[in-house]
């Protein structure tokens, strides 16, 4: 008796679940793996929710899969096992790896065209679009959250040291002068640096319109090699090394770990990502200013433009055609200038299209929040072959080589020239390996 009852109940349950799945089948679910935390996680969820509300055919499901490097590793494992998501957010450092993985990636331009949407790469900010475009002119991934390197300073600390805050120090000599004044006033940490490789070598290069690596910093091909040991690079790292010796620049660790020391007021100046704005605006208990990355005024062509950071959305292969239609519809929604402008204002990431920038400007946002247009102004310029972006294979390892060697300069163990030569020599071994591993394909 009880057994039959149980069977009946199980049968009922089975029927119920199949009914549910029938209902779900009407709506195609599209997995979107991302790495956005805290306020930015809410932003991503809102984008998906708003898109899902606009139509009934597709459902975007955002899934947080850990930090950028973790979600990429997870996607690699999932792809090998055959359960990759349709959309994957990949940081700029992973761009070359994704581009080289032919057959794994579906070009965004192609997906949009197949689904019948108009897709015009020229509406994007050139430095952004150029970065995600293959040497053959095809746009491979969808620009999503782009940031760049900027300079922040503590206005209260500047005032206390008797430095004018009307204009931020724009050049490196001015930064050194301000640092010396801050130190004379008893400041323990006048300048610190986050993302040292990105801000002081990569962005530094394009800001001065010099190459970090050959072949347009790897944008034109895999046979790129590092050349970041020019006299200009040596001069800059030497200057920073001297500032470290004099206590004008205090090293606070790799990646963005220095950011905390700016927010707490311990350090008075910092170079880091434009995406740091939200954090400072919310948590700093002092007046602060955002300005352009410092440069050397005697270098011809400087300042040019800074390099892109952040991430873009990649579409992975092996899904059903309907899913790709849904992806295209979602990207079409994200391309809307209004949506982009809202995202820009909310997160501090760059407005990715020129129209979104104009819309934001017209809304008076930049006037109400001075400094928020710094990143845009640094990026919106016409790029050169040397400044379009930096796209290197094995970039994650090269970044950590940059960290390792620069630390030796800050510690006074290596000269600037020795450290930069090491970066070039060690980095090139990795670039050769990457070229070899990825050009073997048909």
């Amino acid at each position, binding site marked *: 008796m009880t057994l039959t009852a149980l069977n009946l109940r199980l049968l009922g349950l089975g029927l119920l679940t199949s009914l549910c799945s029938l209902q779900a089948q009407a709506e195609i679910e599209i997995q979107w793996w991302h790495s956005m935390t805290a306020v930015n996680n809410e932003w991503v969820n809102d984008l998906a929710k708003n898109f899902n509300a606009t139509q009934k055919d597709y459902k975007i499901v955002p899934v947080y899969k850990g930090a950028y490097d973790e979600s990429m590793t997870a996607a690699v494992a999932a792809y090998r096992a055959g359960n990759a998501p349709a959309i994957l957010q990949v940081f700029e450092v992973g761009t070359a790896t994704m581009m080289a*993985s032919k057959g794994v990636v579906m070009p965004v331009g192609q997906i949009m065209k197949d689904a019948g949407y108009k897709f015009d790469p020229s509406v994007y900010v050139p430095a952004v679009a150029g970065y995600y475009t293959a040497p053959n002119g095809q746009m491979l991934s969808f620009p999503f959250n782009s940031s760049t390197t900027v300079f922040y300073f503590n206005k209260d600390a500047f005032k206390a040291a008797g430095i004018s805050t009307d204009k931020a120090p724009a050049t490196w000599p001015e930064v050194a002068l301000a640092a010396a004044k801050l130190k004379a006033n008893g400041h323990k940490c006048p300048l610190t640096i986050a993302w040292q490789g990105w801000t002081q070598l990569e962005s530094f290069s394009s800001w001065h319109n010099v190459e970090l690596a050959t072949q347009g910093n790897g944008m034109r091909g895999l046979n790129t090699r590092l050349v970041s040991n020019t006299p200009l690079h040596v001069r800059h790292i030497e200057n920073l090394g001297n500032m470290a010796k004099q206590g004008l620049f205090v*090293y606070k660790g790799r990646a963005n770990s220095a950011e905390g020391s700016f927010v707490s007021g311990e350090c008075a100046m910092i170079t880091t990502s434009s995406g740091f704005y939200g954090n400072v605006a919310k948590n700093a208990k002092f007046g602060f200013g955002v300005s352009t990355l410092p440069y050397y005024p005697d270098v011809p062509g400087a300042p040019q433009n800074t390099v892109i950071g952040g991430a873009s959305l990649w579409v992975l292969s092996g899904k059903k055609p309907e899913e790709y239609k849904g992806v295209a519809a979602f990207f079409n929604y994200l391309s809307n200038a209004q949506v982009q402008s809202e995202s820009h204002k909310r997160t501090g990431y760059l407005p990715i299209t020129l129209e979104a920038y104009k819309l934001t400007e017209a809304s008076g946002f930049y006037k109400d929040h001075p400094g928020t247009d710094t990143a845009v102004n640094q990026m919106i310029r016409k790029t050169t072959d040397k400044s379009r972006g930096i796209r290197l294979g094995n970039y994650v390892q090269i970044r950590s080589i940059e960290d390792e*060697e620069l630390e030796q300069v800050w510690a006074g163990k290596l000269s600037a020239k020795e450290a930069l030569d090491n970066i070039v020599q060690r980095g090139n071994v990795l670039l050769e390996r990457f070229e070899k591993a990825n050009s073997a394909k048909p």
Partner: protein
Amino acid sequence: MSSEKRVVFRATWLPWLLIAPQAAVVAVFFFWPAGQALLQSLQQSDAFGTSVEWVGLENFQHLWNDASYWASFQTTAVFSVLVAGLGLSISLCLAYFADRVVRGTSIYRTLLIWPYAVAPAVAGVVWLFLFSPSIGVVAYGLHHIGFEWDSLLNSHHAMALIVMAAVWKQLSYNFLFFLAGFQSIPKSLIEAAAIDGAGPWRRFWTIQFPLLSPTSFFLLITNITYAFFDTFGIVDAATKGGPGKDTAIMVYKVYFDGFKAMDLGGSAAQSVVLMAIVIVLTVVQFRFVEKKVNY
């Protein structure tokens, strides 16, 4: 031989059946991955594994030519000796006193066993917070007594930091074994020595320590293996191998190249080298150190 008790199975399949579960576990979790690592160390592939190329010993050749890889041998040696040496002596000391404690034994022991439940990465973060030059409580205290702690740029400080975290993490495990070892020593031996006039120091060195030698030997091997294999989480959380490469021990490089940089061939080659080193070390320990062990 004749005095040894030998059990003979009548059916030939029975012994095989009985060891089958154990053999299966070893095969699936040890031999299979090790075999995979060996295969991958001879390949070079892109991140997604769409193109795999057999490159022979090229991955090993790269390691051979990489000066920083050779430097990591020395770093690893220093780290392992410190972790095993400090870990064993501190926990031996703690176990010796815990063995003599009369009241509150269980509380004392429970507290000492706690750290074992902490994941390596968490241990790294905890110690990083204590010793972070900007925000660390200990770093702040050291600054006030005139010691400038800087684990970000001073390699000795950075090494001290990961050694402390790694030793702390393994202390409970060592403590448990040493404590059990102490308790298995017959009280009569120690009492007899005491009656003969041997003080605690003498009793420890002439009776307890020699009788603990099997435990110490076992722990020496597990601690060396721990320092070689299980500590990448601590390094990743506390120093990321810095400053420079001064705390980049071999297993951290395996982890970084394989899981962060997705260079599977290079990472596999490194794990093969690491595996070979640990096999050799263990053989050496069994050959030479074990001779001094009294069972």
